[in-house]
């Protein structure tokens, strides 16, 4: 008898399903052996029956029919490589495979000997070759289910080491291919941790005996007494003598159950050890492959996103008659959640804004782009800044971006020096006057959260040489190695004597001061600042 399986492609992605019972049901029903969710698939669509060593595919009077290699069938003996289609859609494909697998009796008889696990190893190898991100999850499930089947354990779980070398819970399964919540095993982590540390397998014949007593009351309470725990060990492939290769434990496989005879037999144990080696190799390669493929893809996408984000910001230096300004945004990751913008709004002069979206990285960058484009669209058609802010708030709420919000400052300076502004939860900007410093606080709550939010604006008069300095909280909340914040006082101290100075110079000084203060401590948030100088009516 050959080991038969279906390579399934559907809306859930790709996976391999082993035909592990004499009558294998395919359909939309949750209890089907292979459940496929699609309107084209009937509740009981088709079955595959194992009769006289042949696999017979039968249509179960499905609504949209069953097809083999493009031909509609009612019953057909499957051959290796046959392509099965369910209904009209091409999006679902099942490929029947038998070759590449040796003899087995393992999944349908459940007997325990080394041959069964060698069979598993072959399947794992096949999965490894598929090499997609999803394969890792499939391998974990397959390893768990196979290990349970062979050892006659009732339940089990797997823990894998993370990048920091700490054990993390990955998956728990029970008999009958069910996934169990990780909390089922909270009392059972002592043995796996010990196995991980020492690399030595543990067989605990009876939790009631010896020093395990009292530590596994939860496990014993459900009647489980016997534990098998093996290390998942990776030995690098190399021609070097075994003694020179460095072995690495990447995780542990834990199984427990009631059935003493199978669980504690020497044959079970040695085949499980052999199997664990194969499983570890498959897990490790799937993981490495997924990581490198994912990383290459993400790096590339992020690079493009960062370029787009830079291009969305206007020129960092600008001058128009009565006003000149300079701005800079330094994301702490590749892309950031801060933005600045400015635009001419007719007789109302020059509008300028700085915004900061809660969070960091790509999600924040997307929302920042949404806020910025709403601002640019709505500022010219609003009569004053509070109206702009209220409209941006409504626009963001319409998009219903769950619990994400933005802070933003928006001001507009007329040629005669009247600055009207509205502050929506942004760190208050500073005005540096000849006579001293003031803060721009009037406005309303952060954007994108509250439909009832109202906004106010205030108008202040600027004199020639006055500076307006707007920063994101990445400036005031920058930390040094001692964990101290840059803070508002330092901000004031760095810029208060700069009245009349060129915006570029003030900005450069400020960013320099923040960098100097951080003293090499990692930048924890996006740093963005805009400096505007009123030059006087022209």
């Amino acid at each position, binding site marked *: 008898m050959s080991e038969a399986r279906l390579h399934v492609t559907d809306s859930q992605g790709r996976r391999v399903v082993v035909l592990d019972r004499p009558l294998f049901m395919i359909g939309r029903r949750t209890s089907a052996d292979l459940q496929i969710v699609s309107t084209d698939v009937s509740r009981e669509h088709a079955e595959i029956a194992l009769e006289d060593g042949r696999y017979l595919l039968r249509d179960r009077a499905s609504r949209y029919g069953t097809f083999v290699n493009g031909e509609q069938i009612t019953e057909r003996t499957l051959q290796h490589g046959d392509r099965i289609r369910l209904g009209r859609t091409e999006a679902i494909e099942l490929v029947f495979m038998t070759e590449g697998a040796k003899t087995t009796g393992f999944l349908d008889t459940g007997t325990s000997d080394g041959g069964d696990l060698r069979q598993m190893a072959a399947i794992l190898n096949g999965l490894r070759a598929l090499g997609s991100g999803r394969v890792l999850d499939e391998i974990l499930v397959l390893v768990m289910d196979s290990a349970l089947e062979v050892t006659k354990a009732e339940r089990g779980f797997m823990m894998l080491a993370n990048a920091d070398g700490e054990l993390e819970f990955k998956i728990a399964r029970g008999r009958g291919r069910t996934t169990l919540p990780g909390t089922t095993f909270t009392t059972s982590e002592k043995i796996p941790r010990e196995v991980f540390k020492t690399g030595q397998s543990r067989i605990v014949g009876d939790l009631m005996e010896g020093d395990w007593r009292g530590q596994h009351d939860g496990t014993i309470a459900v009647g489980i007494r016997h534990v098998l725990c093996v290390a998942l060990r990776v030995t690098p492939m190399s021609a070097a003598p075994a003694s020179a290769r460095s072995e690495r434990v990447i995780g542990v496989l834990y199984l427990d159950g009631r059935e003493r005879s199978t669980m504690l037999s020497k044959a079970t144990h040695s085949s499980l050890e052999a199997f664990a080696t194969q499983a570890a190799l498959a897990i490790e390669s799937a993981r490495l492959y997924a990581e490198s493929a994912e990383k290459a893809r993400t790096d590339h996408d992020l690079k493009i996103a960062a370029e787009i984000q830079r291009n969305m910001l206007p020129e960092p230096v600008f001058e128009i008659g009565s006003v000149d300004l300079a701005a800079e945004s330094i994301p702490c990751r590749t892309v950031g959640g801060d933005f600045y913008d400015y635009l001419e709004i007719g007789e109302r002069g020059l509008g300028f804004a700085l915004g900061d979206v809660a969070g960091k990285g790509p999600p924040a960058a997307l929302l920042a782009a949404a806020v910025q484009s709403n601002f640019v669209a709505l500022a010219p058609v609003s009569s004053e800044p509070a109206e702009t802010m209220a409209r941006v708030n409504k626009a963001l709420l319409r998009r219903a971006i*769950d*619990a*994400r*919000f933005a*802070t933003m400052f928006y001001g507009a300076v007329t040629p005669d020096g009247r600055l009207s502004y509205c502050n929506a*939860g942004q760190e208050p900007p500073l005005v540096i006057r000849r006579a001293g410093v003031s803060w721009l606080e009037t406005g309303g*709550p952060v954007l994108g*959260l*509250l439909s009832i939010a109202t906004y106010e604006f205030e108008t202040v008069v600027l004199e020639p040489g006055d500076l307006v300095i707007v920063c994101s909280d990445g400036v005031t909340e920058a930390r040094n190695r001692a964990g101290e914040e840059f803070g508002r006082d330092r901000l004031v101290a760095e810029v208060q004597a700069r009245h009349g100075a060129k915006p570029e110079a003030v900005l450069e000084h400020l960013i320099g001061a923040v960098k100097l203060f951080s003293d090499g401590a990692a930048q924890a948030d996006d740093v963005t600042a805009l400096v505007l100088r009123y030059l006087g009516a022209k």
Partner: protein
Amino acid sequence: MQIGQRMVGDVTVVEITGDITLSKGGDVMIKDKVNSLLQQGNRKLLLDLGNVSYVDSAGLGQLVQVYATTSHNGGSLKLLRVTKRLKDLLVLTKLLTVFESFDDEKDAVASFTK
């Protein structure tokens, strides 16, 4: 982060311990908790934040979100024992006026019956 719950009369006191942050999943846990309370018909919710050490911007957003959801469902959600750091954050983001907040549980519970 941990979430506990107890009833005082018909007011559900939701006790939150730990950080309410994106990285620790605290923001989503609060949402799920409040949604399930609303589904069970609880309409008077009091969030006890006395044992919350840190709230990041995602956590803050979620607090406002559950406030809005509760109001939308005809309920009211109030805050109990807001820490200094969170209060500063609520002031800066001008969200403090949105929430009714109390330092004393008795006052908070009584306010629901007014």
